[in-house]
């Protein structure tokens, strides 16, 4: 367990120690590589959950499977900033909250759950610094974007939380449908658009092995 004090540098700005940062990165790498992408992202450190109101954050229609706690509302508001959903996207395309990305942050089958507290803490800190001491979930979506943009400077571990939200978004079946990705299939070898069927470049080996 890490105290708030450890998370603050002498200047008073939020800072995570190097060791904690590596913890974040490890978790991040895990979630990321598990999704068969290349890595980055992170989150770490269990912080005590605080109580808050039970209203949805401004601009959200649901919490996307996150619990109705302060951390849950903060993560949902965060996911909505990373990939805005149908309420804020004029095209009506689904966003991270619509596909249930916030729930992934709290899924104990994946290693991110115990680090959610730090993400919420860092987001709140960014909101407080720039928007009169308000919490991240309580400010407007445009303000959240600004707060996140400012918080992401200087190699913030929040970079990795952004990646996690994206991994969660892109793993959603609703996203497959929206982007035209069929998922499981019987193979495309017989599909008319599978291959060009002709040489597309000069080859320099006899059989595919370089001598």
């Amino acid at each position, binding site marked *: 367990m890490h105290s708030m004090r450890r998370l603050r540098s002498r200047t008073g700005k939020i800072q995570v120690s190097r060791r904690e940062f590596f913890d974040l990165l490890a978790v991040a*790498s*895990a979630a990321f590589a598990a999704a068969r992408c*290349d890595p980055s992202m992170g989150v770490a450190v269990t912080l005590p959950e605080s109580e808050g109101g039970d209203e949805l954050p401004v601009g959200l229609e649901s919490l996307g499977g996150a619990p109705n706690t302060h951390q849950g509302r903060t993560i949902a508001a965060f996911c909505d900033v990373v*990939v805005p959903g149908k309420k804020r996207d004029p095209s009506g395309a689904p966003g991270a909250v619509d596909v249930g990305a916030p729930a992934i942050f709290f899924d104990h089958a*994946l290693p991110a759950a115990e680090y959610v507290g730090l993400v919420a803490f860092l987001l709140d800190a960014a909101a407080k610094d720039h928007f009169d001491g308000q919490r991240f979930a309580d400010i407007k979506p445009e303000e959240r974007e600004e707060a996140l943009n400012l918080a992401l400077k200087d190699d913030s571990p929040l970079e990795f939380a952004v990646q996690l939200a994206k991994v969660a978004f892109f793993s959603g079946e609703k996203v497959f449908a929206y982007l035209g990705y069929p998922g499981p299939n019987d193979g495309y070898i017989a599909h008319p658009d599978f291959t060009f069927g002709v040489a597309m*470049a000069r*080859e320099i080996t006899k059989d595919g092995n370089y001598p």
Partner: protein
Amino acid sequence: MEQFDAVIIGSGYGGAIPAARLAEAGMRVLLLERGQRWTTSDLMQSDDPRYIAKVIDLVVTRAGVAFRTGSMVGGASVPMDGAHFRAPQKSFDVRAGDGRPYWPEGLSRNALDPYYERVERMLRVRQFAWSEIPKAGGLFAKMLDAAGASCDRARLNYTDCKHCGFCAQGCVFDKKMSMLHTYLPLAELHGAEIRPGCLVDHVEPERTGYVVRYTRAGSPVEVWGQRVFIAGGGVHTPALLLRSKRYLPHLSSRVGEEFNNNGEHGFIGILPPEFDDLSRYSCFMGSENSAMMSFHFFESNGFTLHPGGGLEPSILAASLAATDDPLVPKRAWGLEYKRFVEAVYPHRLIAFSTLGLADGHRAITIDSAGAPNVTERDRTSYDAYLDRVDALLADVSTKSGVKLLPVVPRKLSGTTSAHLLSACRMADAPERGVVDANGHVFGHENLYVCDASAVPYALGVNPALTISAVAERTAERVVERG
């Protein structure tokens, strides 16, 4: 205590091959595997991180680096993309800082060719025809052709691939000739016992062999082997040797050092709309290795380009590097980013990695609990390699019009590599490596390392076939010795 002629730890390429050959020669063989025994019906076409985490053992270290290794009977031969190349002679010629070659004397392409051939026959490795190359591979070749570069069709161990795009999940159509279909049945046919779910803690010498101590279902077990092969893969093998160090007084101090990710660094290519009739191209159609390989820069600059395929949307979750191109948003999140994704998926994306003769920049260590860890080492040389790659790819990009973006920032290069080489490397002497040219651990009779970690340096091509050929050779030497 049970006694065996040979105890082999790990059932991927490095373990399954000696298991088969030693059993064939009449030895009593026990094969220990940490993962479970899966059948084809257990495999799924799924991108769900929870499924992937079961198929691929993700070794996440305290240093924040994650490595992918196989996590089942058959090891990494099951969840992989099927690429099997012979290493070019140039790979055997690379010299270390002291001017001496990394590979021990007597090992060269020519020397390994008979073993390469033996493995290729077993795994039915063949070069794909152009009619089997998915458009993702065709467009990758077209990009290189536009830049004046060559691109060859790859060699894969698929019988008749259906090109569903789910290779790293394990082939649900049984088309990939993994260890499960080849060497492991051969080993069992000759009486070898495969024991899954066994987590080896350490080995220690006893009489002329070794006691192998492991846990199975939470209970400690020990077995004795006249010979012991460590084939736990590029991360777990050095960790196991380091845990055994106090029982192995002559073990080289090089264990874990020289760890090498084979110069693997990923890129995404965004095709310009006029590149082809892109409405008839979908990046998810085709095998995960889109069956091409470019050796164009290998002779001059020591790296190859190896395309991916079967691209699912999560490829876009990768952190795209900042670029001045108006197509790519400054921030990789928000509405602008969402529009970017819609613009490029699935018709305008290709992906590829470099594989190259690059120095490593990390070492495998263990933490206080004996779990694998990673220590960063000097990366000056690795960064210089990435500089060369960037410069040459900038030229490809300019000439072809394909926008090329690194998949991860430089500092994270190689962190989810599946090519985990050299942490117990072969060498001519213990001050330069951990095992000799026959895979025999220096100073410890009858103890062998037989997997990716024994490969002495980056290969610049996919390493599975070389790991296998070296395993065939090591097994042959052991059988000859009797």
